[in-house]
């Protein structure tokens, strides 16, 4: 194993991006979507999530630690690439570049978002519909959240495409093409869910 450290880290990075971090992202977007059903529906859903047993362990092992590893190793990966979309403007090369750019944007967004919500909650603030409504009183925050949410969703959807390649699931060009369409569909569907949730608080 010693000689295969890089291989192991890369595969772990890829796996964690989907399981659990990617699944958490989908779950989070779905729960937030309750906001479109009104204040009470959102608060109930959020409260249900908050009252899950062993909450701190769930957060630590399903969200925080996997995300931390993925983000740190992801930054290392992102900054070892020398992007060349100007010279080689192929579709996949653009996706490659965007995967790295959206990773960095997502990181900035997530840090801010966690600070504003989960850390604030740790200091006694209540995370509810009201809190999000207050945040979105600032139109710049709406813009920031839209960019952050779309980046995270793009990064997840396109990451799913590359996950299928990294593990040798989609090998033929045809399966990779179909995977492009499928993950594009996931990107659009989740984007609708995410944006609808944001505007439910506005």
């Amino acid at each position, binding site marked *: 194993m010693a000689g*295969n450290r890089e291989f192991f880290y890369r595969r772990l990075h890829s796996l964690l991006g989907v399981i659990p971090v990617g699944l958490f992202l989908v779950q989070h977007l779905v729960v937030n979507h309750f906001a479109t059903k009104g204040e009470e529906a959102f608060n109930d859903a959020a409260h249900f999530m908050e009252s899950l047993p062993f909450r701190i362990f769930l957060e630590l092992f399903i969200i925080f630690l996997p995300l931390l590893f993925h983000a740190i190793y992801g930054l290392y990966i992102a900054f070892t690439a020398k992007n060349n979309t100007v010279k*080689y403007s*192929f579709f*996949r090369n653009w996706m490659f570049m965007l995967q790295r750019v959206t990773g960095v944007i997502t990181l900035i967004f997530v840090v801010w978002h966690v600070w504003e919500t989960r850390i604030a909650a740790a200091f006694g603030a209540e995370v509810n519909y009201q809190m999000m409504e207050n945040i979105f009183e600032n139109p710049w925050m709406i813009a920031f959240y839209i960019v952050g949410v779309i980046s995270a969703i793009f990064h997840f959807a396109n990451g799913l495409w590359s996950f299928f390649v990294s593990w040798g699931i989609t090998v033929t060009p045809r399966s990779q093409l179909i995977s492009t369409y499928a993950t594009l569909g996931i990107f659009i569907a989740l984007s609708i869910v995410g944006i609808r949730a944001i505007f439910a608080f506005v």
Partner: protein
Amino acid sequence: MQETQAKTVTFIVSRQDSPDATPYQEEFKLEYRPNMNVISALMEIRRNPVNSKGESTTPINWDMNCLEEVCGACSMVINGKPRQSCTALVDQLEQPIRLEPMRTFPVVRDLQVDRSRMFDSLKKVKAWIPIDGTYDLGPGPRMPEKKRQWAYELSKCMTCGVCLEACPNVNSKSDFIGPAPLSQVRLFNAHPTGEMNKAERLEQIMGDGGLANCGNSQNCVQSCPKGIPLTTSIAALNRDTTFQSFKSFFGSDTV
């Protein structure tokens, strides 16, 4: 009717006197001849090394060998695209024609680069079929014709370096061996005799600078002059190494 004024071709060549020297550009104007290619133009400049300002200069250095796009030695960046200069026809190129070395590799001089890292990678991944022994090993198993035809496509690689030049993950910050030697692993693992060293080759590309460095930009497959399905090879090896890692971790036959 012949035109009275001769048609000319303009080249802007990136030059560099030694591996560490600062590159500079030099312009050359040549008389047009039908069917000329980049190499014949470079030969013309070598015959009469005078730049477009009329100053005499040193002849340009470049590599070449087969002159029919099978050796890969003459690769350089022509109008921004890495390709073989022996098959780059002047008639099909926009002018001025810009020539640069493939800077992913150490530049020896002018357009000549040192591709040793590729040959070192081929040694590392054992890109051959061991048939030598202390006694006659016999003819070995046969390969089905259909598979031979498929393998022939992979065997067309001429180690030209274009795919490494196009890859965003092959650069001075990474030690990624690049797509070409990876695809060769798939080729030699597919051979009935070469298959005997399959695990060894897979373990090698699971090491540092190996397969996992690929980030799927897929520039390689778009750029390879031989149309080698590099990204299919990489994905297939991803599958093989997935199984290989399970085998060696959980301990069924590791060889």
